């Protein structure tokens, strides 16, 4: 007669499934003992984590902060767990969850968020994705400077954040992955630890990162923002390329410089996919009207054609970008920014080209830890950590705790994550500059999968997934060539 295997299997990590299944065969009764019964409230896989609280919420589900219990000696590793609800239409596993899993299973990069585990909760057929936790994101960092510190982010940090963002994006693009939803809240920054100050691109077109639960969603444009949307998308282009991500990077770069969103359009919400006239107007106001001269395919875009009187109603002739971002039109950062905000997606700078830009060759050089400046005298900012709602369980249901307990819970969190740790730590990393990674040696197998694209074995311009995990932050980068394939020029 049948017996259940554990309700929750967890994958990856070990020789995984087969051994897991074999282990559960024939001794089902034992499994039942530990799996169900009295403590059925807490799923089996969850017992490897200590749940800290809820850190985010989106249409696809919830995001929790948890700590691993093993190894018992250490503090435990912080893990962000994203719960995907079953798809609403009763059609099985959420396609968005599947999309995110299948992409993240294939990619590994130091500047892309790392999927460490997938858990299945059979009770409600939901999937839980476990990621390495990043304490900060660009949204919170920018906000901290704007609202608390009232001073700009220092040059080194801006440059390092931008460099790493481009580094991760170059990897994605060379793997044919377009993010499509880059915005400050989707760009995470690692907190104190081995990878302190490292960018992690997150949310592959999926759930949104943290929303402060106390704030009404409508207050916060970041959830449904169109501010980072490229003009070709706004004008209704049917096909688009990785250039849409570069536009978003340009917007983010400007925001890092000024602490304000560059193109803060008001979103039209009448129909499911309305024409965003105001957003375009905000862009035109700063960059000047696009012309067919500069952007030949412009006239073919649906909205440009159909809405001539509105779009072309105002004529903004001049380009005011430099005065908005307070940069000299002749400076290197301005040159890079304006190349990212090029109207014609075909002329827009690529991630690979941007990494090679003059701006990154000038002092200060970008570094691995974007949050800790190179200059010894420079002030280190302790950024606030992500707010955690300690008042929920993994189902997302709020537990009935008295309010005092919530307060003390938050206080505990502040103690654990806030000012107490990681005081100023001057670091001397003057020589440390990350290099674009080289191409891997190209062999038959490399060609095999992509033969359709590139049967001739031509270099395909991809920075290969060489996650250089530095054992220690202070260590200098290994010289090129040590452990890396010979450097080859990427496609420009």
């Amino acid at each position: 007669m049948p017996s259940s295997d554990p309700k929750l299997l967890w994958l990856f990590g070990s020789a995984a499934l087969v051994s897991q299944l074999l282990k559960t065969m024939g001794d089902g009764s034992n499994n039942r003992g530990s799996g169900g019964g009295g403590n059925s409230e807490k799923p089996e896989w969850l017992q490897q984590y200590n749940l800290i609280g809820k850190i985010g919420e989106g249409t696809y589900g919830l995001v929790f902060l948890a700590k691993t219990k093993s190894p018992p000696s250490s503090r435990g590793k912080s893990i962000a767990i994203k719960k995907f609800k079953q798809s609403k239409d009763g059609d099985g596993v959420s396609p968005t969850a599947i999309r995110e899993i299948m992409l993240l299973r294939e990619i590994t990069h130091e500047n892309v968020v790392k999927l460490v585990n997938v858990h299945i909760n059979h009770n409600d057929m939901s999937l839980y994705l476990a990621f390495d936790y990043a304490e900060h994101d660009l949204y919170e960092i920018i906000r901290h400077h704007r609202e608390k510190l009232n001073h700009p982010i220092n040059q080194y940090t801006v440059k390092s954040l931008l460099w790493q963002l481009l580094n991760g994006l170059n990897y994605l693009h060379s793997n044919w992955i377009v993010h499509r939803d880059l915005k400050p809240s989707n760009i995470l920054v690692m907190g104190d630890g081995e990878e302190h100050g490292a960018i992690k691109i997150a949310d592959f077109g999926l759930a949104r990162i943290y929303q402060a639960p106390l704030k009404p969603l409508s207050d916060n444009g970041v959830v449904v923002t169109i501010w980072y949307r490229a003009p070709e998308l706004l004008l209704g282009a049917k096909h688009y390329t990785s250039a849409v991500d570069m536009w978003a990077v340009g917007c983010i770069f400007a925001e890092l410089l000024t602490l304000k969103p560059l193109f803060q359009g008001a979103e039209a919400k009448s129909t499911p996919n309305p024409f965003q006239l105001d957003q375009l107007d905000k862009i035109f106001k700063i960059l000047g009207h696009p012309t067919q001269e500069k952007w030949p395919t412009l006239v073919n875009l649906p909205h440009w054609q159909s809405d001539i009187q509105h779009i072309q109603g105002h004529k903004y002739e001049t380009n005011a970008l430099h005065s908005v971002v307070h940069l000299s039109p002749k400076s290197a950062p301005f040159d890079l920014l304006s190349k990212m905000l090029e109207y014609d997606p075909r002329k827009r700078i690529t991630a690979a080209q941007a990494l090679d830009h003059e701006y990154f060759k000038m002092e200060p050089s970008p570094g691995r830890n974007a949050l800790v400046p190179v200059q010894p005298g420079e002030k280190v900012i302790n950024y606030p950590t992500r707010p955690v709602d300690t008042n929920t369980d993994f189902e997302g249901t709020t537990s009935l705790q008295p309010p005092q307990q919530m307060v003390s819970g938050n206080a505990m969190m502040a103690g654990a994550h806030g000012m107490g740790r990681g005081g100023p730590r001057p670091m001397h990393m003057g020589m440390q500059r990350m290099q674009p990674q080289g191409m891997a040696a190209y062999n038959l197998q490399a060609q095999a999968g992509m033969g359709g694209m590139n049967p001739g074995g031509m270099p395909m311009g991809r920075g290969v997934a060489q996650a250089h995990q530095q054992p220690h932050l202070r260590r200098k980068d290994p010289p090129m060539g040590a452990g890396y394939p010979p450097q080859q020029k990427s496609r420009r």
Partner: protein
Amino acid sequence: MADFQTSTHRAKWIFTPQQLVDKYRTTNQRAKQMLEKCGTTKMEVDADGSVTYPEPQATENSDKHSRPKSLSCEEEEFMRVYYEFKLREVCGAFYFPHKIQATALTYFKRFYLQWSVMEHDPKHIMLTCIYSACKIEENHVSAEELGKGISQDHQMILNYEMIVLQSLEFDLIVYAPYRPVEGFIHDIEDSSHAAEDQIQMFKDSATAEVDKIMLTNAPLLFTPGQLALAALRNANEVLGVVDFESYLQNILLRQSSEHTVPELINILDSIDSWVKKYKFPTERDMKHINRKLKSCWGHGSHDDKKREKKSKHKSHRSSHDSRNAPAPA
């Protein structure tokens, strides 16, 4: 789409012939032992996607001769071959593109590296693989629609979805040889003087060759690029578009590969041998196997009723209670 070189496909799902033999033997043995211990090999998959294993029978209640016999490894292979063909028919009936069919086939092959056909009904798995492939290839078809199209219960597809995804270890991006074929042909086109219609024939013929290859075990043993080259070589033998050997030489040179032409030819030869070895079961074979399989699954006994009851009162307590009850003879 990610890059094949760093893909899970390349890292985890390309095996040696011996590894395949071992895997098939292991699952076959496991099912066989289960049959001896439990009198059935069939796993139940519930609506929540969890798998239920048969339990050992309490007593030796039947003599050796009336015991159901398990399938041999060869018979299991026939089952897989049969349902892979069926899978293609179903995809054809829905006019799904090649890519979906190839993805579904790959899922099916990978699934039965982990399980015996005695444990999970290949008919259900075949449909679930198609359903999953549609989801992954952004060609979503609802389970209901899929089920309706072939008059099968769509709930069964949904039940199996999780176990299929799990058995694939969530490695869902797979690479088929169709795109490499196109790429190689573009490449050949550039350097040859073949007429347009000849190139089209070349492409059609190579695609047909890939179709054949995809029904063998070769996709578990070779990279998509190698499979594509094997298909192209066979197509070229008839059409003579290029001097194939010098073309191989040319590719290896351009990518400064460590492989030599003889090595590559060796690989292509072994892919061919898989195609030549391909054997589709006769109707008689299938009748025999299906009869054996039915007895492995214990159909037509009290088991069915019992299972029905179980699924209605699926609680730990009830299954705990019934464990002490005497097993049905």
